[in-house]
């Protein structure tokens, strides 16, 4: 046995090189955040001025759809062109500004709807700059756009924090001068985790709505739309060039005309999904079905003749719109986990308060709570057995202080009497949890990686292989394949026989003897050998760059090693806890874990491995109970 004292690993003070590097790193983020923020604020300031402009009646003199931009170039966008006149302070003016910037869209129908809303000869309201009445707009700045200002805040904030941390963080000496007992305060920064998962959930919900739910609702609504003959004016696969690292994407661009009540309308909506994606052939096949000059059938919204589509059903591409569901799941699972943890912490506080010595009514409630609480709920042994008897301390102070620290022993609930009571142990992790957890990670990881893999394959198929991108993907693909392998492993593991453990007493004192009964459900015949041992280990979690959990086993007591089918299927054994060791401890980051390890060797497939935590009490607590 090797033993030595664990000491604090103090961080070495940062050298000047490290400070400069971190400052530079932070300044890049801070600069980028401030620059983006400045651009957004400048645009918003100009836009916000329109809210001080005076509301005035105006008359639309012309409105049309233009395909060229101001330079006369065609890039596939449609522009809204409008002219109107108005009288301000007795003088007549005219303007051609719909809003502060040009209104354009790839979607013809969106611009067509504006021409419907502002037909020539109609009256409208415009907003006139009182200090320069020749300036006017039909639509003021959208106040929701102000939310964009929040976008660069995390970048700038992170950059500022990095610079501050490099130069102004507390030294080890300053930290040492602070009371250590202050560490027992409730953890701060939980709201950051809540914000993180909330952002995942909100972004996921917004993307899910935009990419899947909205098109799906449109599809369902369009089932009752009448079919109308339409003529294909032009038909092509439109290319969208991405940035340096993004490949080219494609979209179906079929321009067609149709008549409603004797009036001609035009549109370029193929389906309700819209947007572009990789994959050329599928789009080419669609375009081939609608050659220029042919007649087709389109479906028109009876309430809005500009709301139209050539394809009103579900298309295979729509399933891509379900990808944001992964973000929704990460956010939702994270928040549920946080709120569940908060609930458990609250229940723990109640349980602990209830076990206090002050009030017999509360003590009765304690016993009821402890029976009702999950076996994994911490029970209080870190507090004074006699409470404040003879102590000048208020009981609530003592209890509150201990709660903030998360001082507790994790493990099965005590019996109401605290004495020999049987307890069915719960495994630390069930194979089903592992399987579903890994499947979730597998879907999340491979779902994202597959988007880039498909893009790379397409680039290769269409003769523009993006080798750099493909090489970059290799480690991500290898990890993804590893996760898939893990899913298959746990898929086999859930088919294994399942161990069930019953211990007497439910919580054993140091120096006491634990009676363990086991039995297996499922295919126990596959077992070739079964070993049970009681393990005591230290476990400490660290955060930061090398976030991990460090463990060290200090006790390993094998108490059963059987190989006959009858003994393996069910049996009983006893194990004595050495009195010279330590009881269970469950701090927020540091734990003393006592657990029964079950290892069943199988003929084929994964072995049966399960851990069942048990509670080991201080000898004095057990004696008192």
């Amino acid at each position, binding site marked *: 046995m090797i033993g030595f004292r664990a000491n604090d690993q103090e961080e070495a003070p940062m050298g000047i090189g490290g400070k400069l590097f971190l400052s530079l790193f932070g300044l890049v983020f801070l600069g980028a955040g401030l620059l983006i923020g400045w651009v957004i604020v400048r645009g918003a300031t100009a836009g916000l001025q329109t809210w001080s402009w005076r509301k005035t009646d105006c008359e639309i003199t012309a409105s049309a759809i233009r395909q060229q931009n101001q330079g006369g170039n065609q890039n596939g966008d449609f522009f809204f062109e409008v002219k109107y006149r108005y009288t301000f302070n007795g003088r007549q003016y005219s303007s051609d500004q719909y809003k502060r910037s040009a209104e354009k869209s790839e979607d013809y129908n969106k611009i067509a709807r504006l021409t419907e809303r502002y037909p020539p000869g109609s009256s409208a309201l415009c907003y006139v700059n009182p200090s320069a009445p020749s300036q006017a707009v039909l639509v003021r700045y959208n106040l929701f756009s102000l939310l964009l200002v929040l976008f660069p805040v995390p970048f700038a904030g992170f950059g500022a924090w990095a610079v501050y941390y490099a130069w102004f963080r507390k030294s080890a000496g300053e930290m040492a001068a602070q009371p250590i007992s202050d560490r027992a305060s409730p953890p701060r920064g939980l709201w950051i985790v809540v914000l993180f998962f909330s952002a995942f959930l909100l972004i996921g919900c917004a993307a899910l709505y935009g990419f899947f739910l909205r098109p799906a609702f449109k599809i369902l609504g369009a089932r009752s739309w009448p079919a109308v003959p339409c003529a294909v004016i032009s038909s092509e696969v439109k290319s969208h060039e991405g940035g340096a690292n993004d490949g080219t994407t494609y979209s179906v661009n079929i321009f067609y005309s149709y008549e409603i009540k004797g009036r001609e309308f035009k549109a370029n909506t193929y389906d309700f999904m819209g947007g572009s994606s990789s994959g050329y052939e599928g789009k080419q096949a669609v375009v081939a079905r609608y050659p220029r000059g042919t007649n087709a059938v389109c479906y028109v919204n009876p309430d809005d003749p500009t709301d139209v589509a050539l394809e009103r059903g579900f298309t295979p591409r729509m399933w891509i719109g379900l990808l944001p569901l992964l973000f929704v799941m990460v956010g939702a699972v994270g928040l549920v986990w946080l709120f569940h943890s908060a609930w458990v912490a609250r229940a723990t506080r109640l349980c602990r308060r209830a076990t206090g010595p002050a009030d017999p009514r509360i003590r009765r409630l304690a016993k009821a709570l402890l029976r009702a609480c999950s076996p994994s709920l911490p029970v209080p042994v870190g507090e004074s057995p006699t409470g404040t008897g003879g102590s000048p301390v208020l009981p609530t102070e*003592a209890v509150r202080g201990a709660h903030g620290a998360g*001082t507790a022993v994790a493990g099965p609930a005590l019996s109401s009497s605290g004495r020999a009571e049987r307890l069915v142990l719960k495994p630390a992790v069930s194979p089903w949890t592992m399987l579903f957890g890994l499947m979730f990670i597998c879907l999340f990881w491979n779902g994202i990686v597959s988007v880039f893999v498909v893009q790379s394959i397409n680039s290769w198929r269409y003769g523009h292989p993006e080798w750099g991108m493909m090489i970059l993907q290799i480690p991500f693909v290898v990890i993804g394949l590893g996760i898939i392998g893990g899913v298959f492993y746990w898929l086999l593991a859930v088919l294994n026989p399942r161990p069930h453990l019953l211990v007497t007493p439910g919580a054993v004192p140091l120096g006491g003897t634990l009676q363990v009964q086991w039995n297996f459900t499922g295919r126990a015949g596959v077992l070739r050998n079964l070993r049970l041992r009681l393990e005591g280990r230290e476990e400490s979690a660290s955060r930061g760059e090398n976030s991990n959990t460090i463990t060290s086993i*200090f006790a390993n007591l094998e108490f059963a090693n059987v190989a006959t089918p009858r003994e393996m299927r069910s049996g009983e054994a006893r194990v004595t806890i050495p009195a010279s060791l330590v009881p269970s401890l469950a701090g927020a980051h*540091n734990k003393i874990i006592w657990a029964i390890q079950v290892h069943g060797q199988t003929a084929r497939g994964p072995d049966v491995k399960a851990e069942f935590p048990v509670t080991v*009490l201080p000898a004095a607590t057990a004696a008192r109970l």
Partner: protein
Amino acid sequence: MSDVKIQLGAGRTAFEPGEELTGTAAWKLDKPPQSVELRLFWFTRGQGEKDAGVVETVRFDHALREEARPFRFRLPDGPYSFSGKVISLIWALELVALPSKETGRQEITLAPGGKEVRLGSLPEPQARKRLFPWGRR
């Protein structure tokens, strides 16, 4: 110059679980504090994040700039003071002047026999090496 210190009864620093601990909390500060707290707590040292748990707190209100007050605690059953490979658990009393947070600390040992438990380190149970987890041995 401020001075915040804890003196334990009979100079003892090692205790049995459940035993009574007595002593005197004394302070001499530059200006009168709002209050002074005496905290009985444990904390961890080691390779990972640190934990701490305050078990009892005595608050001395209406504290003078210079004073000494007696105190008495009933120690809890656990956790024990121990020293392992990755975690050490230390019990201590801390006297904190508020709001300046000038602090005096006195470490104690709380374990059976008044001796810190030393935890050894055993090797991980030997795992059978197999290329594939489901292959025959």
